[in-house]
């Protein structure tokens, strides 16, 4: 409800509103009598600018009644709806309630469409052109802001079209990801690895895993320090989808490729977040959307 700063203002506003209606009625009744002797259609005797004569052409009586009815309508409205300060109205109408009502009506209307898709498996939904059209719109409106309109992602935002998944690419897993979000957390590892030189060596070892440009001597030194990393990324650096640890042996560099980027990562760690969409999208929508995303990496 409206948040007034003191108890005075609601009364202030109410007085103006009610006073306005009363004033209009008083004015109407006070001015509805004329003391002019002129009959209808005659001149009132008032002449302006030498030749403009005021005639007495009264309004029809129903016109005055319409004015009164308007005032009565205003009174009824103010009784039923909010309008007088903090008074909420007899009907309890609020814009928020109306909005929620309209959302509910729309959801009820589209529920049968989604119900059909929910009964299908993700793979089946991905084959349904109508579902994919819905998925396309959902993706464009809710996901493309971060992952890009073509879902190829960018730095810090995973590419959804390749087969390299941080948490797994099964339809159910994608649903889980969209609903609850993900938190890619890597602690700063510099202390566990050792000094700056050790960090550099480990970085070169990581580069060697994917056959990127590296110094073999440094990589060899870094190999034994990699034990600290293996807890999450696995002894072979192939990552771990259970905890969302990236695969270090492929060519995908979500947070930047090259020596400097890796050293920065080891020193500073990372906290990357995919926000949960469960409160914004319905489970039925997520079911369709996940199938749409799944289809990117599982070509038709």
């Amino acid at each position: 409800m409206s948040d007034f700063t003191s108890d005075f203002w609601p009364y202030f506003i109410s007085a103006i509103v009610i006073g306005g209606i009363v004033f209009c009625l008083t004015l109407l009744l006070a001015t509805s009598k004329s003391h002019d002797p002129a009959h209808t259609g005659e001149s009132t005797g008032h002449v302006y600018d030498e030749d403009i004569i005021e005639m007495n052409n009264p309004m029809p009586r129903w016109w005055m009644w319409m004015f009164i009815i308007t005032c009565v309508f205003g009174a009824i409205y103010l009784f039923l709806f909010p309008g007088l300060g903090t008074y909420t109205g007899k009907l309890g109408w609020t814009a928020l309630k109306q909005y929620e009502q309209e959302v509910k009506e729309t959801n009820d209307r589209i529920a049968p469409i989604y119900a059909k898709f929910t009964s299908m498996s993700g793979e089946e939904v991905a084959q349904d052109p109508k579902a994919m059209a819905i998925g396309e719109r959902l993706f464009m409106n809710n996901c493309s802001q971060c992952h890009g309109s073509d879902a190829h992602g960018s730095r810090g935002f995973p590419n959804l079209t390749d087969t390299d998944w941080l948490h797994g690419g099964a339809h159910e897993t994608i649903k889980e990801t969209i609903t609850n979000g993900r938190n890619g957390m890597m602690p700063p590892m510099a202390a566990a690895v050792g000094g700056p030189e050790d960090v550099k060596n480990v970085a070169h070892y990581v580069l060697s895993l994917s056959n990127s440009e590296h110094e073999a001597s440094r990589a060899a030194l870094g190999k034994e320090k990699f034990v600290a990393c293996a807890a999450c990324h696995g002894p072979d650096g192939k990552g771990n989808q259970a905890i969302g640890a990236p695969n270090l042996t492929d060519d995908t560099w979500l947070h930047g490729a090259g020596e400097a980027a890796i050293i920065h990562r080891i020193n500073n760690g990372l906290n990357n977040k995919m926000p949960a969409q469960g409160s914004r999208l319905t489970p039925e929508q997520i079911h369709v959307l996940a199938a749409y995303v799944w289809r990117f990496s599982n070509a038709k």
Partner: protein
Amino acid sequence: MSTQKSTSKKTIPIVNDPAQPVTRSLYEPHQKIYPRNISGLYKNWRWVMIWITQIVFYGVPWLQWGERQAVLLDIGTHRFYIFGLVLYPQDLIYLVVILIIAALALFLFTAVAGRLWCGFACPQSVYTKIFLWVERQVEGDRAARLRLDASKLTRNKLLKKMLKHSIWISFSVWTGFTFLGYFAPIRDLMQSILQLHLSPWETFWICFYGFATYGNAGFLREQICKHMCPYARFQSAMFDNDTLIVTYDEERGEPRSGRSRKVDAKQSGLGDCIDCNFCVQVCPTGIDIRNGLQYECISCGLCVDACNSIMDKMEYPRGLIRFSTQNALTHHWSQEQVVKKVLRPRVLIYTGLLLLMSAGLVYSLVTRVPFKVDVIRDRGVMSRIVAGGKVENVYQMQITNASEQVETFKISVSGIEGLSLASAKEFTVNAAESRMVAVSLQIADGSIKSGSHPVIFEIVANGSNERLFEKSIFYMSR
């Protein structure tokens, strides 16, 4: 009349003492007007206009165009179907231009011939006329109606009134139904009525417009024109001394007086007006045109018909009341001189603007491309390096297919040497649907300097071979 006794008192009228102030209400009870029937040229023109406007109004919703209603203003889905044309909210400009054309046409007609719209084409007058016709068929002409309304309630009177109102109401409901048929498919609406499951809103709107017709044409009638209508006010402001208006030729008519047909008016010093009040009785707004031009006059010309029929009976020349102009009356101009004055600057300017606007509307409708494209560069992705040492930008392209067939759109891009389209080159969009697709552009890294570069997308519809160009920006990272 009951037989009166000779002992009835004679009443002495009370004369107001001018020294005593009189208090009068500024509002008066409405005096009902009983227009008398009349036949003649302008009456016939009015009926011609009624037939034309009403055949269009009641007929158009029933026309089919292929699988759909020919004219349907579908507010729910934001599509206006007008025969072969489908308009979208983005086409608002056409509505604006049509309204401008309508306004200019009103200015033009008014400057030339006064409140022509009011007298001959306005729905208010047209429906009032139709309702009056019904009233006359049931209750008789003016004198009979006056007698009927003044008489006590008899079975006969009740039957007549009930018959009149039931015809009025059924006609009004049909009007409301037709009006709604422009916004909801009229055949489905008919089905819903026959099966008695109209939605509450449909019922409401039919009743609403039905009631508006019944109230306006049955009861309010000329009061709308006199007290409510804004057009009436500003049309009056567009008159000048060369505007054709209904005029009473005072010089010829006065002094008015009744006379026998044998009397030679010239010799006895009488004017041609025989003071029969026929012109007052036929007037739908209840004015006396012999008092000069009044704001209530809607230029319907019925008093012209009335007066001419009397002049014919009296064997006087026609045209004591006629369509003429203020200047023509004061300067005694002939019809030719009046017609010559029609082509004055004001009229020519209105006509010029009207033709210009209409030509513009026709041209833009003919050259209208039946699809719309919007391109927005992805905000989340500035530019990215992809395999093969290329820099890529991503765009969201919204293609709206405004035609009624499935259409395939070919996309190409120009603006930078070596720029290529890395995504699909063709997209299919269903009839009257809109689709958002991702488009990506690539260029070899380092081939252009960093910063923004304008690019132009060209979108060609395969079916109609019509094209649109859409500007955007390619961003090259450092």
